[in-house]
């Protein structure tokens, strides 16, 4: 079953500028762990923003788990993001005044889930990423790798269809980066969650099932999976 379909996505910023995305098309089956690679300026981030419903395409189509997500109001887009997508960012983006579990529970907060259930689910997810004993620590009390694990717990806590990870190991040293990568792998395998990861690190890309390469806004023909 296909979780993500991207069909002929077109996007350009401003008039007279070239297309940032030019008829980009690909699809991901459920449980896939795909790397999106390409040089900077190739349209990786734009593609991720479109799939993450943070931006609208000029034309083309995105279908997430059977739901066509074109032309949404900002409010509808927010609800769909909350329900379907988990984000992992390069610089973690944890809120410094919140504890680890409160950070992990943020998507549930915005879903309107009550505090008790929020806490229970966030703690379970922190346990899943190996941070059960750090639940009440604040981000500044955590190492980089631990912070990214909290962020991963946050991405997973809402039970999304799709995880979008933007250079999740970009701010980590190679050992820690590899640990985070292994965690993502493990979660992908055990929970069956679909992951699309932007990276420019070919070592990391090689750890994925599939590598989608983008250049000048076009998806290159598929190479053999890594």
């Amino acid at each position: 079953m296909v979780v993500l379909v991207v069909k002929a996505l077109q996007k350009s910023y401003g008039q007279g500028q070239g297309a940032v995305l030019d008829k980009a098309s690909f699809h991901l089956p459920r449980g896939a762990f795909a790397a999106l690679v390409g040089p900077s300026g190739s349209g990786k981030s734009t593609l991720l923003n479109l799939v993450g419903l943070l931006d609208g395409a000029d034309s083309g189509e995105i279908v997430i788990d059977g739901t066509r997500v074109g032309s949404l109001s900002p409010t509808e887009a927010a609800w769909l993001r909350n329900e379907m997508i988990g984000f992992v960012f390069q610089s973690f983006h944890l809120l410094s005044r919140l504890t680890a579990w409160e950070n992990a529970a943020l998507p549930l907060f915005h879903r309107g889930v009550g505090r008790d259930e929020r806490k229970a689910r966030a703690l379970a997810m922190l346990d899943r990423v190996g941070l059960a004993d750090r639940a009440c620590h604040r981000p500044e009390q955590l190492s980089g790798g631990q912070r990214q694990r909290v962020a991963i717990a946050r991405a997973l806590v809402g039970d999304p269809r799709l995880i979008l990870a933007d250079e999740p190991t970009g701010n980590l040293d190679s050992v820690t980066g590899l640990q985070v990568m292994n965690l993502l792998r493990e979660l992908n395998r055990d929970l069956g969650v679909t992951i699309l990861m932007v990276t420019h690190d070919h070592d990391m890309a090689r750890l994925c099932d599939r590598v989608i390469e983008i250049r000048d806004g076009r998806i290159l023909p598929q190479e053999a999976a890594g």
Partner: protein
Amino acid sequence: MKTRGVGLVELAREALTNLRVQGRRSVLALLGVLIGSAAIVALMNIAHIAQMEALNSFRQTGVDLLSVQSDGLASLDPVLIDRLVRDDPEGVLAAPFAITTLDVSAGARSTGIMVAGVTPAMAGMVGLSAAGGRLLREVDDCSPVAVLGQKAAADLSAPGAAVGPGSLVRIGGYGFTVVGTTAATAPQALSPIQFDTAVLIPLACARRVMPQEGATGVLIRLLPGADTGAAAARYTAALSTPQMPVRVEDAKSMIQAMKKQMAMLGGVLIAIGSISLLVGGVGVMNVMLMTVMERRREIGLRAALGATPGEIRMMFLIEAVILALGGGLLGDVLGLALTWFATLFLPFDFAINWVVLFLGAGVAASVGLMFGLYPAISASRISPIEALRGD
């Protein structure tokens, strides 16, 4: 698609946490609103107390009261007035009086004092009571007796020669025996006599020391609920002659006029307070804009995680309202303290007008709403892509 969202209570709890984290800056924003609403609360509360005091001057006499005063030196005939009031179905009691300022002396001390010729009816009219000796009685008729107001007695007393019942005083050259002193009497709204500083003598013999004959004025008590306006017109018609015009005032119209004046004063005070509250509101807006700017990344993150623009707007709006409401409530406290402080220097007793307190807090909260709207809307328009990019 189902509707859902974060509850207001949850958002308020978040807002409180944020305000606490911002600490000093929150306090500064709060201070602006605090000063504004404290000014409103204090000014309006003091105005309220002043109004209460003014209305209090009718407590003894009641509001079913007329005051008739002749213009100039012409005088009214007490007998005619008595008959008029007795024949008036709404008339209850008449207390005629004549006033003038005369030299009054006791021993070597001499001073200009208001001398009032009154009938015994005056005591019941304005609630006089004797502090020492007795008040004037019917039997005094035209005897040379005097009753001194508290302050008048003190003014005439010399060290070692206190003036009281039994003392002899000279009024306008005539000797009068003091038969009593009055207890402190609050000024009465319609009465031109300040009883505490006056000397009272029987009206029947006032003619001896006063330039005019008869009464210069009369207080008339009507039945409770009487139409004092109509009665005023009635007595004006009955007593006025071309040679001797009279001025009739009634308590209810006076209260009306007073209330109108107070309302105007209140309006001016509200305007002044509102200006300071506006300044406080700008402070709230300033702090909220700074907060929004500083929390751009957080706003972008929350948006990415599924906060709707409406939720983000509400988040910051609640923060602004809590800030302003906090300022308003503290302003209530400070305003009351200022009111209390002011009453130390004013001839008023401290009192609290609860309506003003609710008004103070409510207006402050609406100021937060008004001035928080723009920062909140700008927060909800932050693009998550730009907010989360780089750094």
